[in-house]
């Protein structure tokens, strides 16, 4: 079988793996979002204690490899009695990791909002919570879009690391097929192509969306 | 020999004999569809100081940049001494090394000290030995009065000092002529004087220069010739007394009166 025929044959199987990768990515980025926003608020507005705790979290996850974090969850936790199935461990690991990076993007966006905005909110009588909710957050969400889109793509690529803890995503499926017929290089060529196409499409789509929601001056 | 070559040979000899450093012939330049320089002709002799004045946006700076080919030319010829520098096979880098250029925004090399800024031309372009290059650099810095600042970085110098260093940088290459593109326009008023002083001294020492400027006092005191440019052509050319006291064209007179209105009459 030549390369193209072969590619055509295994494509559906690889697609199943790709779907797992995408599922993993979407779940992880949602966790990252839900956790990242409070983390960033803690780092910008929190008192000394909150600031220290959130900083430790962010530094720990950003200063260590994803692989190590996944190993700790999947291979490490069982030794203290907690066993995560592979997919769950991957979602938790990638999610917590993404939260740390997203926290930094949100923090950067908040700090980029001009100081006068907060002052103006206060001057019409808003308390801190209201100022954050009605003035800071809406602007932050718009400012953070480029970094956030980038995080989505990074996460998609990082999902390949879940192969190492036996999650049946794209790379894993690829190696499974390869173990039967040893055409490993060609399989990975196709896998690379699949990632390339998905990333390029995502990039274009996200840029388009960015342009549509743009507010002049923000 | 064919007639064309004969004429060229004659021109070259003529230029050499009359110590003509620069000859600009029928220069045209357009930016896209807009023609900025519409046929300029002039000559510059050794030791002469020519000052170009005129309303903004009429192509004065562009003209200067065309001479040392930082901007491309659409039509026309330029001769540097006896070499036609607009020929396609001319060595552009060698030509630029013989023409000094002083920018309005100084453009000192930000990562080098004043000494290194002045030294880098002789060192890296002319490939001199370090001792020689340093000697030249220190001399030129002395000449502009900044020898004591030689180890300072551009960001640590005032605007006037930066511009003087950039003049030293141009001088260190021992050029045949120096082009000044509005050298004091980006300076705070109290710093203009120190730069003009250096330029006046250079003119008195016989440096061949073309200066685009709005400083009429300077033009009056050192220019051998003043060119009034408007709308991409030379409207008038002549010695300062003629241009300032008896301008031939209406527009020249109008322009001069506007300037003296704004800055007071420095020609007195």
């Amino acid at each position, binding site marked *: 079988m030549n390369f193209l025929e072969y590619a055509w044959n295994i494509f559906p199987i690889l697609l199943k793996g790709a779907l797992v990768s995408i599922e993993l990515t979407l779940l992880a980025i949602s966790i990252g979002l839900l956790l990242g926003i409070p983390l960033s608020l803690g780092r910008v507005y929190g008192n000394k204690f909150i600031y220290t705790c959130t900083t430790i979290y962010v530094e*720990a996850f950003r200063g*260590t490899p994803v692989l190590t974090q996944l190993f700790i969850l999947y291979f490490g936790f069982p030794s203290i009695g907690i066993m995560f199935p592979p997919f769950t461990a991957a979602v938790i690991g990638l999610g917590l990791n993404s939260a740390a990076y997203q926290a930094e993007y949100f923090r950067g966006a908040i700090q980029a909002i001009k100081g006068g905005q907060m002052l103006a909110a206060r001057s019409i009588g808003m308390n801190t919570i209201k100022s954050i909710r009605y003035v800071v957050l809406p602007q932050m969400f718009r400012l953070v879009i480029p970094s956030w889109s980038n995080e989505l793509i990074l996460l998609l690529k990082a999902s390949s690391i879940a192969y190492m803890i036996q999650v049946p995503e794209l790379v894993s499926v690829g190696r499974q097929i390869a173990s039967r017929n040893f055409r490993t290089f060609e399989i990975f060529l196709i896998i690379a192509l699949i990632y390339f196409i998905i990333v390029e499409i995502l990039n274009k789509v996200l840029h388009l969306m960015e342009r549509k929601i743009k507010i002049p001056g923000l | 020999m064919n007639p064309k070559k004969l004429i060229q040979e004659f021109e070259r000899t003529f230029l050499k004999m009359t110590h003509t450093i620069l000859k600009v012939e029928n220069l045209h330049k357009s930016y896209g569809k807009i023609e900025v320089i519409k046929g300029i002709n002039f000559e510059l002799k050794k030791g002469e100081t020519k000052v170009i004045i005129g309303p903004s946006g009429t192509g004065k700076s562009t003209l200067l940049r065309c001479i040392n080919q930082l901007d491309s030319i659409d039509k026309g010829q330029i001769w540097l001494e006896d070499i036609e520098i607009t020929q396609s096979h001319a060595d552009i880098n060698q030509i630029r090394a013989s023409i000094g250029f002083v920018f309005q925004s100084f453009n000192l090399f930000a990562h080098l000290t004043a000494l290194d800024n002045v030294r880098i031309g002789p060192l890296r372009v002319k490939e001199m030995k370090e001792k020689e290059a340093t000697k030249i650099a220190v001399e030129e810095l002395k000449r502009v009065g900044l020898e004591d600042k030689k180890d300072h970085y551009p960001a640590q110098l005032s605007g006037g000092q930066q511009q003087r260093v950039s003049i030293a940088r141009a001088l260190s290459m021992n050029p045949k002529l120096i082009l000044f593109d509005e050298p004091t326009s980006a300076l705070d008023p109290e710093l203009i004087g120190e730069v003009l002083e250096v330029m006046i001294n250079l003119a008195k020492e016989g440096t061949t220069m073309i200066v685009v400027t709005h400083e009429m006092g300077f033009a009056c005191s050192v220019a051998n010739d003043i060119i009034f440019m408007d709308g991409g052509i030379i409207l008038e050319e002549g010695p300062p007394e003629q241009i300032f006291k008896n301008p031939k064209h209406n527009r020249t007179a109008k322009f001069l009166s506007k300037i003296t209105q704004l800055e007071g009459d420095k020609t007195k």
Partner: protein
Amino acid sequence: MEEKLIDKLLLIGKSIPSLLIGALISIELALAFLGLGFVAGIPLAVGEVYGNKFVRNLVVLPIVEFFRSIPALVLLFLFYFGASYLKLNFSPFIAALLAMGFRSAAYQSQIFRGAIQSIDVGQMLAARSIGMSKFKAIRYIIFPQALRISIPSWSNEYATVLKDTSLVYALGITELMRQGRYIVARTFGNAILVYVVCALIYFVIVHLGVKLLDFLEEKYRLPGYESKKIDTRI
């Protein structure tokens, strides 16, 4: 209970040396990847900024896009299995070096490109005006400034590459993670403790490196220059 804790701590104590050896390998790998990335990244950046349309669109941009859109793990496997497919004799180390090195080159080229483009256009004009050729201008004027401007973003790249060395675990290379794995296997020990120690070691190496780069940035900073961190991964 107390016995077990002391046992565990002793176990960890005994394994530190082999972990440190693994860490050393990780550092070596990181330096090799960054080195190749630097050497290959500069021509890519120069080509992208100063090259003609052909060079930019048909050579530089495809290379950069390729290495940036494909996950590091996939790149590693691609080079590793590609070697045997093309009947070349590569050790896993060479495969990793090529894959991760060129990947870093793609990212570093973007750092340098950003730095070069942030340099005021007057610098190039001034260099040309004293007769420097384009090559000399780039070498003596643009480059020294671009490298200084790049240092903050480059320290980001250092951190990323160091963390990514963990991935060469997949090719069987004995760096820090694999050493950790061996220790867990040999001692049936507390996997979580071992891997947390590995994480700590990475953390320390990353931060020491970043501190060193910060120090270099201070040392070579030009008065009047403000540094901007460019996020390569965007």
